[in-house]
């Protein structure tokens, strides 16, 4: 039992660091720093998956955790980094909501999530805590998407939402069938590719990736 609590403790610690990364993304002005914060968050969550795998002793889980670290920690940031490179020269457009207010909103999301999921704890409190963290990350990702104007930041917000899902899957101990997990990873990779291409095309047409200028379709 001791080893098990150690394991959940290390997972909880890694998840807390991942939450800190999300707050960092809310605070950073420079999209490249946010991109690094996302990469760090993905690697931390991948390590949490490793920690879970070492407790469960399932080789498939090890492979999946390695895949998650590789794709989300390295491949995805590299693809989006290139898109950022293309649009990096201009001045960052100021966000719709100020940075301190964004941080405050993030704290609010955390409280809300724990309030929603808390009553569902039942005999599996660790899973409920995981769901609360997942919901927090998803709301913070959504917040990044609506409060920032750069196309790159909107894509990053979407990826934070996806990391929230990763935490949710972590909370259920990756019990979902492996084919589903692989499908999710593949979808994520394709989605990032599509978003990267769209960002560079938008930048090519508008010579800016400020999504506030994508406002012509009305009525």
């Amino acid at each position: 039992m001791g080893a098990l609590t150690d394991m959940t403790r290390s997972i909880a610690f890694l998840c807390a660091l991942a939450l800190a990364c999300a707050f960092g993304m809310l605070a950073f002005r420079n999209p490249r720093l946010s991109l690094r914060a996302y990469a760090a968050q993905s690697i931390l969550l991948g390590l949490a998956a490793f920690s879970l795998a070492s407790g469960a002793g399932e080789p498939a889980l090890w492979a999946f955790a390695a895949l998650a670290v590789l794709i989300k920690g390295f491949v995805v940031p590299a693809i989006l980094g290139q898109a950022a490179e293309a649009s990096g020269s201009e001045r960052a457009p100021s966000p719709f909501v100020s940075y301190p207010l964004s941080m405050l909103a993030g704290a609010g999301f955390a409280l809300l999530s724990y309030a929603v999921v808390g009553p569902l704890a039942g005999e599996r409190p660790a899973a409920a805590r995981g769901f609360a963290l997942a919901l927090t990350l998803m709301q913070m990702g959504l917040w990044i998407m609506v409060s920032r104007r750069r196309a790159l930041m909107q894509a990053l917000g979407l990826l934070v939402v996806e990391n929230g899902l990763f935490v949710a899957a972590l909370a259920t101990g990756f019990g979902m069938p492996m084919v589903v997990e692989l499908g999710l990873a593949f979808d994520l990779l394709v989605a990032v590719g599509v978003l990267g291409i769209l960002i560079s095309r938008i930048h090519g047409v508008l010579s800016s990736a400020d999504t506030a200028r994508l406002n012509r379709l009305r009525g």
Partner: protein
Amino acid sequence: MNLPAWSILVAPIATAGLFLIAPSPAAVARLSRWGSAAALAVSAWLARAAIERPAVSSHGLLLDPLGAYLAVLVSFLVLAASLASERFLRGETEDGKPSIAAWRAYYGLLHLFAASMLLVPIADNLGILWVAVEATTLSSAFLVGFHRHRHALEAAWKYVVLCSVGLAFALFGTILLHEAGARSGVGATLDWTAFVAAAPRLDPRIVKLGFLFAVLGYGTKAGLAPLHAWLPDAHGQAPSPVSALLSGALLSCAFYAVMRFHAIAVLCVGPHFLGRVFWAFGLASLAIAAPFILIARDYKRMLAYSSVEHMGLLCVGLGIGSPAAIYGVLLHLWAHGLAKGSAFLSAGGILEAFKTRRIARVTGALARAPASGFFLFAATLGLSGFPPFATFPSEMLILSQGFRSGRAAASAAAAALLAVIFAGLLHHVSRMCLGRASGPSLEEAGPGARLWETVLPPALLVAPLVVLGCWIPGGFDRWLSAMAGIVLGHG
């Protein structure tokens, strides 16, 4: 002969692959025609088997009567859209833009889009269902942004970002359901057949939360208000054959996912809670669609808002929840898909003839572009629920069941909103089609094009719409009843 469920994917994927070696645009078009006809034949064959025999799940795939119903609709619309695409792409070529590469890319994406939509009905597993629906977004993103100018890119960006984030919430709902299943011993499975069987034993609080997230997520993809922000942009900016698929087939796929979750949740948390959720989404969609249709200036956007309306009506039907109402919902799913598909295909013909999307600049379409004008008018009558189209019996059934279910005020509100929408649609389209034919007749088919390319695709869709409006064969009636049982969780 007993075909496995995955054989439905073979024709579209093989067709998409063969485009890589097709030497000319004409070869691409011919290949697409035969490929989509083959996909329809396989769907119909599998559907017949699915109705006659109880479905057997294998490798997380399964085709039951409900899935078969969706598969036939999707592959039928793909065939019509594929036929209509030839004229669309040739019109683009005259401007000197698309090359053989553009033809390959367009048709390749179209068939991959078809394959992802056909994976939706054969998924027996909530996870695979999610992967399939997300794949539909990704495969159609560049079709929406096909024109590559700023409006098309704006629409594509909104489409991918909003639908992906919506679907993330749907996946969260799926994971919550999985947790509920794990707690009550369903095991490490996401098969919805297992969930339906275990539903009464699941923890209703978790299922409620999971269901809400799932409806929020798939509802975004189905264009339910207030989550519909991407829909008018994407449907307005996409090439018209793609709009027809987005509206007729893709929204149906998303609504199908909602119905699957309905089947699980209704047995666990009961119809009362679900009724409130669906009525709220349904009335909100009708209420949002009505004013935007009245003030519409762009006819493709008007048709897009009409999709929001019809998805709302389908939700209202689910909210009523009686077997007869679900029967109406299912009939309406086909009726809307066929009517909206032909409306968008003929709107594409109008766009090509008049070179404008503005309602005010199109007059006398019946005289100046007779084929497209006629089918646009007919499809609009169908969309407004006029007899002899199949939308008439389905809307009547849903509304009358609404009044019988005791929600008189809400049903009256729905009927009033439908009447407003009816008036708005007919006002705009009769201006476009019947108005004064000032100006020369527009050579609709264009040089080198054949008349059947304008007439056949919408006619293919309108014909079954009229037949089902006048007569529902006995076999089709039994099919609909069997599906209503599945949606209500006891099929």
